[in-house]
């Protein structure tokens, strides 16, 4: 059950795993996610986006950053071992249709969930330009895959080690002015998505974001993932994870993401003790 077939360390704290999960591989659509739990009474449930899937081989690809104790434990599993509990696909799929001109913005490992969406949009005949942002050149994930499918790929880094030394919002603004996209899809750290939405707002370009809030069951039962969308409370796990970026109450969402910050800090330190992962700068 859920055997790990392939594992690769993409950067200091970012890992790629290909896992056998035939049901999920068959049912999943771009934009959906899974929740995993590493067995026993005490392990957390962790939501992760699906980066890719192969329904013939019955596999899904997960790309994740080892940020807490649970993701570190996951990163320490090896090929041939199993992820005991894997539930999915969860959430509402992306609305894939002919929009025309699309800009996909992926920040950090947000590129991973972006990939199947960009791919599906491209396959349907959309013109797709991709902006990928990272702190430095070593932190890009799925760069080759994105290069292969993008009509134009724009890289930005914080330190200028690859592409432009800029935030993703800079080229996004330029494209909004010069290229006038019909749709923007932004996936990455919440703060990046917030500023992408703010960037596209004056140009009135429909902007989809994919939220990664705190959640437990992922089926609509706990409500821990709730967000304000245009004044209404929505559950990310079932109503999302994608929403209209212009309607998201970002401040509230960012605040709620910090609910367990004090405990996480303690855990982040603890999780590097005895676990085989260096504390990278990712």
């Amino acid at each position: 059950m859920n055997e790990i077939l392939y594992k690769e360390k993409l950067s200091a704290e970012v890992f790629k795993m290909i896992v056998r999960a035939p049901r999920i591989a068959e049912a999943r659509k771009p934009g959906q996610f899974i929740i995993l739990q590493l067995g026993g009474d005490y392990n957390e449930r962790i939501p992760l986006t699906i980066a890719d899937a192969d329904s013939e081989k019955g596999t899904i690809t997960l790309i994740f950053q080892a940020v807490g104790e649970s993701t570190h434990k996951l990163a320490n599993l090896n090929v041939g071992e199993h992820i005991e509990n894997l539930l999915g696909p969860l959430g509402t799929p992306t609305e894939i249709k002919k929009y025309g001109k699309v800009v996909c913005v992926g920040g950090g490992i947000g590129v991973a969930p972006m990939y199947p969406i960009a791919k599906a949009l491209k396959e349907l005949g959309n013109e797709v330009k991709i902006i990928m942002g990272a702190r430095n050149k070593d932190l890009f994930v799925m760069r080759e895959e994105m290069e292969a499918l993008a009509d134009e790929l724009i890289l930005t880094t914080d330190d200028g080690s690859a592409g432009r030394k800029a935030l993703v919002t800079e080229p996004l603004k330029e494209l909004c002015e010069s290229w006038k996209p019909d749709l923007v899809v932004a996936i990455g750290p919440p703060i990046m998505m917030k500023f992408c939405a703010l960037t596209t707002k004056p140009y009135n370009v429909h902007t989809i974001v994919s939220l990664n809030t705190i959640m437990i069951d992922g089926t609509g039962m706990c409500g821990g993932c709730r967000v304000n969308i245009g004044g209404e409370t929505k559950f990310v796990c079932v109503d999302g994870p994608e929403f209209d970026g212009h309607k998201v109450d970002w401040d509230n969402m960012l605040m709620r993401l910090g609910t367990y910050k004090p405990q996480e800090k303690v855990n982040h330190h603890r999780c590097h003790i005895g676990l085989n992962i260096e504390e990278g700068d990712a």
Partner: protein
Amino acid sequence: MHATIEQLDIQAKELLAKLGDNNLSMKERLTIPLQDMPTQDPMQRITNMEEVALGYTENQVKVEAMRCLQCKNKPCIQGCPVGIDIPAFILQAAKGDFAGANATIKESSLLPSICGRVCPQENQCQEYCTYGKIKKDISQSVAIGRIERYVADYAREHNQDVTPFVKKSTRKKVAIVGSGPASVSAAADVRREGHTVVMYEALHKAGGVLVYGIPEFRLPKKLVQRELDGLASMGVEINKNFLVGKTRTLEDLKDKDGFDAIFIGAGAGLPKFLNIPGENLIGVFSANEYLTRSNLMKAYDQKHSLTPLFPSEKVAVFGGGNVAMDSARTAKRLGAKEVTIIYRRSEDELPARKEEVEHAKEEGINFLLLHQPHEIIANEKGSVKGVKVVTCKLGEPDASGRRRPIEIEGTEQVIDFDTVVVSIGNASNPLLKQTTKGLDVNKRGNIIINEETCETSIKGVYAGGDIVLGAATVILAMGQGRKAAKSINAYLNNN
């Protein structure tokens, strides 16, 4: 003063010596005092998660069973959703035939050790008890639930609970969606007829609300596991991490996977909020989240669990049902200094089991009755700082038969809290409706069924439990599961 189990047992033993062999007149029975449920000392139990109610001793259960008047018309049975022959099993218990008493219960109920603990008996069997009627006090009724619990625990501990006989294979396949009380009952009854039964549970542990919702201190999880092990030993396949509607649609189960019938017992599972300002602040939780963190994810054990807990000093719980009591008492055990139930009606209308209310009070939970929350106030960091409430008075009874709360103008006040748990009930999870063509639901999102057969608008698809009833009780869910199973068995025999 808290009476220990030893003290209660000595009293019962002395009484038993006087009462002799159950050959008593009605007048004599009416002088036997109600046997108190032994409990952990309140001050001790708020520091642990272990079961609060310890269960009767053998002496106590015999004395309590002798209170039963053995009425000819058996009024108690009409209060039992599954029609257990209550006087019969109580008579067996009075005679010390506990295994026999358990067998009598098991003819009608599959989960007596669970129902004995969580049924609201005072609104069911015990409401109709003649003893309570004569005393003009329902709390003086024969403690049917406690006797039920004793005999079920006895049978379990003495390995006298036998795995039900399973008939030879019919080669028909039934899918059960969910693994809570409705599903467990349906699965067992369908499996007995020799049908192949596959159960699908979304979470990583089976048991539904019995596992994620009801806390350990009220229902030990090993009891739930035992029932699930029983199903497995009957040959029921339990598939976890499988969300029907997402992992696979209901239609695919029917059309592609060859299931001849399906039972939906997916539960209510969509938390309601009051829709007042501040409900999305840091420190506001649905009871589902609060309890799931603690129960399913074992966050109460912070030494081992990786699921974090929100540190609380002053917790407000909105609502007055069993889930509200569970949340409040969980908060206390998780280290909150002050926990307050805020409920808009008076104590008489609290929907929770009486025993839970009593236990909550003993544990120092505050009850702010006749108050309605209007707003949750934030501090500068976006965390809960307080709750604005308004005082209510009771007016005329509403549709539910309970007196309607009326807010009194000009009574607004803000009370300091750092955590809010919203426990005002659950609506139906819309997932199956959204992903299943032709599945009819009512305005509240509950699946509509034929009351007689539990069949839904789709042929061969049945439903029961909270997804039909809205948030109800374990025993009602179980009753519907059994009713649906009967219909499924009939349907499969005829097709």
